[in-house]
């Protein structure tokens, strides 16, 4: 492929300006819709957003000049829109009860931490292939992180799921970071053992089953993390990890049989879960019969009423009533947006998610090394699955499971982890898109002292 990618940093800046218009415009529209005037803190909010976005852009210019130009603007637009929506629900909640605390300032703080981490990753990680050295370390740390919430003292149960740790005033969901680490661990392992996994072994029915010693370590790593999640009642994350593992196995071995086996296993596991756990039964009943007399699906029904009220073009920002849905600022932020922006807005948001996934998979396609390919695929799949599970859940396509909507919903751990995911994707895409370096001049006397570029 003699195909040279351009840097496109100018195009990125242009899209970033548009994304700021989306974010800050939403904030202004919320103020206009709720109070009838432009909010007084629009300038400080807008400036802060601009500083963060420009900071990330400058970091890319300095450290990943050839990186994908579309990812950062897409993410910045989603984050800005999410902040405005959380602020809008804050206003309604505080109007109903002045004692409540607002979520938007803390979300902006988490976004700042996320961008700082994003810049740190770009500056410290020069070459994503260095991560391959940490295959087992990443896997071990991921499992430790997943165990943390189960420890007495720091772990805490919120809304039935024990996935939080509290350290002083800070609370954190370690599973979000574990997600990124598991992608690195799976990719590092599969890239070394893909041939053995695909070729050595016996054929059972439609699938070439690999040898135990090839699949064993990674299977153990995966079962442990899945077991912990089931133990913590975190259905969404277990579904996410299951799908992630399956897709990465399929991509690395090029054996579609894995998807079949995985699908059957998933079906069996889900049915078993339905029969044994009340938690799952409640969710499935709410999904099948949300409008029944004794239904437990109040949240789901409220969200659907909201979206129906929004209709094609929405109520307008600040003029719906999204606060009537429980947790409308986090798990149910998409129905809130659907209520105020309508189908038109939600389709645009889903399209933005689709473009993020597309850029991730494109990075995987053009990446030259297998490890980078697998990591990029894994990160894109994490993103896609998460959006599918959340959007499918709130629109009653599949049973509702708790997962965060990336970049939109309120929640620091998820936001920070997603910024790191984007930084990793940009690092890989910079590597993949960078043209081969200039040829050394064959005329030059190679023994003489040369000026060597260190970058």
């Amino acid at each position, binding site marked *: 492929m003699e195909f040279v990618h351009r840097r496109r940093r100018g195009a990125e800046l242009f899209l970033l300006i548009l994304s700021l218009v989306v974010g800050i*415009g939403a904030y202004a529209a919320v103020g206009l819709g709720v109070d009838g005037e432009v909010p007084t803190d629009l300038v400080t909010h807008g400036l802060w957003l601009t500083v963060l976005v420009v900071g990330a852009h400058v970091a890319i210019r300095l450290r990943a000049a050839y990186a994908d130009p579309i990812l950062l603007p897409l993410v910045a637009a989603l984050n800005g829109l999410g902040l405005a929506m959380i602020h809008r629900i804050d206003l309604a909640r505080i109007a109903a009860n002045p004692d409540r605390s607002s979520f938007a300032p803390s979300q902006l703080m988490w976004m700042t931490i996320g961008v700082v981490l994003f810049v740190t990753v770009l500056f410290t990680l020069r070459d994503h292939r260095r991560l391959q050295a940490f295959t087992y370390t990443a896997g071990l740390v991921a499992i430790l992180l997943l165990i943390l919430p189960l420890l007495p003292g720091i772990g805490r149960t919120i809304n039935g799921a024990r996935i939080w740790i509290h350290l002083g005033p800070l609370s954190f969901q370690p599973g979000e970071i574990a997600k990124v680490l598991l992608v690195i661990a799976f990719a590092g392992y599969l890239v070394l053992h893909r041939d053995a996994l695909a070729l050595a072994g016996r054929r059972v029915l439609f699938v070439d089953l690999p040898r135990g010693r090839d699949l064993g370590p990674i299977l153990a790593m995966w079962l442990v993390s899945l077991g912990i999640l089931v133990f913590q009642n975190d259905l969404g994350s277990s579904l996410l990890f299951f799908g992630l593992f399956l897709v990465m196995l399929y991509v690395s071995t090029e054996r579609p049989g894995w998807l079949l086996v995985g699908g059957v296993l998933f079906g069996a596991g889900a049915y078993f879960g339905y029969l044994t756990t009340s938690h799952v039964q409640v969710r499935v009943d709410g999904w099948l019969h949300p409008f029944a007399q004794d239904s437990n699906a109040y949240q789901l029904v409220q969200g659907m009423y909201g979206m129906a009220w929004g209709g094609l073009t929405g109520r307008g920002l600040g003029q719906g009533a999204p606060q009537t849905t429980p947790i409308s600022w986090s798990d149910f932020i998409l129905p809130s947006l659907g209520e105020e922006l309508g189908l038109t807005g939600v389709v645009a948001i889903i399209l933005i998610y689709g473009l993020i996934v597309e850029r991730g998979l494109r990075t995987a396609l053009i990446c030259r*090394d297998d490890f980078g390919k697998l990591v990029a695929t894994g990160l894109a799949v994490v993103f896609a699955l998460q959006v599918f599970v959340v959007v499918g859940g709130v629109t009653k396509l599949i049973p509702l499971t708790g997962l965060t909507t990336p970049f939109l919903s309120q929640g620091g751990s998820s936001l920070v982890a997603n910024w790191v995911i984007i930084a990793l994707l940009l690092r890989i895409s910079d590597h993949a898109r960078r043209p081969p370096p200039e040829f050394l001049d064959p005329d030059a006397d190679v023994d003489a002292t040369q000026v060597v570029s260190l970058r």
Partner: protein
Amino acid sequence: MSEPTLVLIRFAYLAILWIFVLAAISVIRSDMFGARVARETGRRDERRAAKASKARSKPSKARRGDPTQVVIVEGGNSGELVPLAGAPLLIGRGNDAAIRLDDDYVSTRHARIASSGDQWYVEDLGSTNGTYVGSSRITQPTAISLGTRIRIGKTILELRR
């Protein structure tokens, strides 16, 4: 705030959202076509460069003949010759390496020598101690020519005719 103004704001915001999405899509599109244009200008540059070098017309030793073998100049296996015919060549301590180095500072799958057209490249495969061309550690495929010294661990390799 009057009702028509609010309706106006509502539609204006949806328009902004969609303009953003469409702009992003158009950048993706131009990125694809842009890459092709860049290749053409690249070719033009190459042609210009070729013309310029012809004008200089300074035949050099290095231009005569292509490299045919890799020589280990320094290190435990010093003196070994490996033909380039089997390229791409894997360098490392592992059994599957085409150039097997007996050097504690070399990784199992350390680096690879491959060609693209007339140009030879060396690429680091995520080794622990790195691959050096000249004095700089390489992070991506790097072009090498006759006599370029590639340092891997304590071993130094070179392309020869």
